[in-house]
């Protein structure tokens, strides 16, 4: 097997040897300047565009087959979720550990209509219990009818949800069940992917690679394919349905 040293020194030689070739006019353009806006600055800038952002987000997400609902209260959000569960005759909902979802008290409402709700708060200290949790989660996700999550940000320009992994916030919730429902607040809507990346970059305190969690999933509409005669078909491997609930209950201090 090659080593880093061998591999990179070969590249170095190739880069230096360039002058010998007859057509040495390779570009070496400078990187385009990246103006790193702070999360603070982005929030301030976006605050005034909120209405336009919401409109854009709805248009974009609907255009790719996602559902967007705007609700004014936690109760309304909960009703939407329970209604969905009825519609899909759901037996099992797996959800993220998430403050916003907890606030909805959606668990009780679902259980009331006979739907099992499971979360997975990881027992951090005990590796045995952790392994057990992981196995359970796989089984749960494999048979879940609805995955219920939050999101870090929602990108208006493309109708994209950005979901970072955190304890209790698993990748599989937005991936394995046939229906994915995400609940966000208006303050989580940003304009562009560039905004979103800048927010992710500025959010934490630690060095950048640690600031990014092990996986950030950018999700835009349901899973789709055009692999058979280029005919658009929904729900290949990921969810065939994506619902975004925007909860505007004015408790959102930032907006």
């Amino acid at each position, binding site marked *: 097997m090659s080593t880093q040293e061998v591999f990179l020194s070969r590249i170095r030689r190739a*880069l230096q040897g360039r002058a010998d070739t007859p057509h040495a006019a390779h570009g070496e353009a400078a990187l385009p300047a*990246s103006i790193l806006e702070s999360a603070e600055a982005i929030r301030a800038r976006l605050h005034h565009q909120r209405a336009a952002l919401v409109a854009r987000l709805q248009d974009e997400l609907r255009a790719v087959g996602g559902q967007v609902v705007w609700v004014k209260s936690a109760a309304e959000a909960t009703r939407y979720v329970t209604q969905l569960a009825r519609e899909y005759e759901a037996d099992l909902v797996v959800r993220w550990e998430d403050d916003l979802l907890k606030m909805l008290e959606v668990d009780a409402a679902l259980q009331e209509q006979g739907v099992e709700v499971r979360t997975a708060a990881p027992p951090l200290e005990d590796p045995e219990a952790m392994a057990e949790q992981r196995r359970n989660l796989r089984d749960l996700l494999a048979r879940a009818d609805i995955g219920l999550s939050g999101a870090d940000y929602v990108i208006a320009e493309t109708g994209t949800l950005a979901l970072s992994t955190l304890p209790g916030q698993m990748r599989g919730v937005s991936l394995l069940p046939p229906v994915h429902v995400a609940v966000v607040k208006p303050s989580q809507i940003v304009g562009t992917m560039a905004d979103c990346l800048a927010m992710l970059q500025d959010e934490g305190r630690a060095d*950048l690679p640690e600031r990014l969690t092990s996986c950030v999933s950018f999700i835009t509409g349901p899973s789709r*394919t055009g692999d058979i005669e280029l005919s658009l078909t929904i*729900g290949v*491997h*990921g969810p065939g349905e994506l619902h975004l609930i925007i909860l505007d209950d004015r408790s959102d201090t930032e907006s």
Partner: protein
Amino acid sequence: MHLGTEGFVDHAKHALQDAPLQEALHLLTTHFAPRRVEAMAALGNAEELRTQARAIKEHTIAHLDRYLEQFVAQLTRLGVQVHWADDAAEARAIITSIAEGVNAKVVVKGKSMTTEEIELNGHLEAEGYTVVETDLGEYIIQLAGEAPSHIIAPAIHKTRKQIAELLHDKLQTPYTEVIPEMTQIARRSLRQQFLRADVGITGVNFAIAETGSVVIVTNEGNGRLSSTMPKVHVAVMGMEKVIPRLADLSVMLKVLTNSATGQKISSYVTMMTGPRRSHDLDGPEALHVVILDNGRTSILRSANREALYCLRCGACLNVCPIYQNIGGHAYGWVYPGPIGAVLTPLLVGLEGASDLPRASTLCGACREACPVKINIPHMLLQLRQELVETKGGSHWSEKRLFSLWAWMMQRPRWYGWATKLAALAHVPLAREGWVGKLPPPFHGWTQSRDFKAPAAMSFRQRWQQTLQHESETVGEPRQ
């Protein structure tokens, strides 16, 4: 290495006679190309974005050693296991030993051209592993035992009927031609594989040096599942996939997806920074990144360095008049179309692929469509020049003809006579302005195409007339 690149002319002839293929290609050209044009126009600043994307690639490749070093330093810090592969054989050995190390039985794969390039599947299967392609298109052609014919629509050469029969045949499921039903059959079958698999192998669309992140772009979710469910994730990347900063991702993503499918963004963009952490409940416990050279350093050294800027979006295929007529298989290797006509000779050697640089009209559509403005026609010409130089030049008659031409071009009077003579000579051969067959030694020109008969009046004659006419009407000589 399985190479069909020398049979290009025969393959192309077959492809032109293949009715289902022609139908599929027609579908392709009327689908992707206009979508890309619309999507790029809707961006409003497409030109600026292409310029930026180009600058990012130019800069990164010019400092590739530095950015790879930074990328790998971050990977190591995150607990990712890094492997360097000089060539396809090394890459295969690395991946096989990873699978061996975890006693794997089933390996699932997300869609990846790089693993096609190293012909991974056959080797893993020979070692006794069950390898399952999970991208729907790749799954279909794996069931059929074929190779992909388009970078992003690998099964484009197969009709719905053919696929319906294939699924019915191979999976023993009820026959259906309804595409959503066929898709659900594949979903159910592949979901079982995802849950069983020990190793997930994916490609890499972007590798971010600043953060050590690996980014995968898919629509179906095959990349997400392959990198989430198995306990080991192996990401295989050509060494040119690195970009410097997290901030560069937004530009690169935009040009990639808009060019590839005309989507503003694909359904899933997955950015993985290290394996799962101790508190994560899902995700792979180990992440391996395999960095592949396989001929790329020689491209770096050559005059065709910009071939390394390619994002594998497939836009140049969709607009190419040659690809539109013959499809991907005729090119004989994993990378078809205009970029394939460049990459294949550069990666496998010009001797094995001498027809490919000639398989172009040099119309420039590929360059126009390229999200990073790769000058493909220029590289094709360069490869043709190389061919002529290494193969001891062209036929003596061709050389003689061109020296005669050069001699005449320097003598306007001779040139005038010669063109008049040529026009006269064509009169008995031409039918409705076209010559179907030229006599020797020119017969080669009309072997596979008609020759446009020279106009009755040459350009020079017409020019003379125009000048005369203008001086008469304006009444004074032009400045």
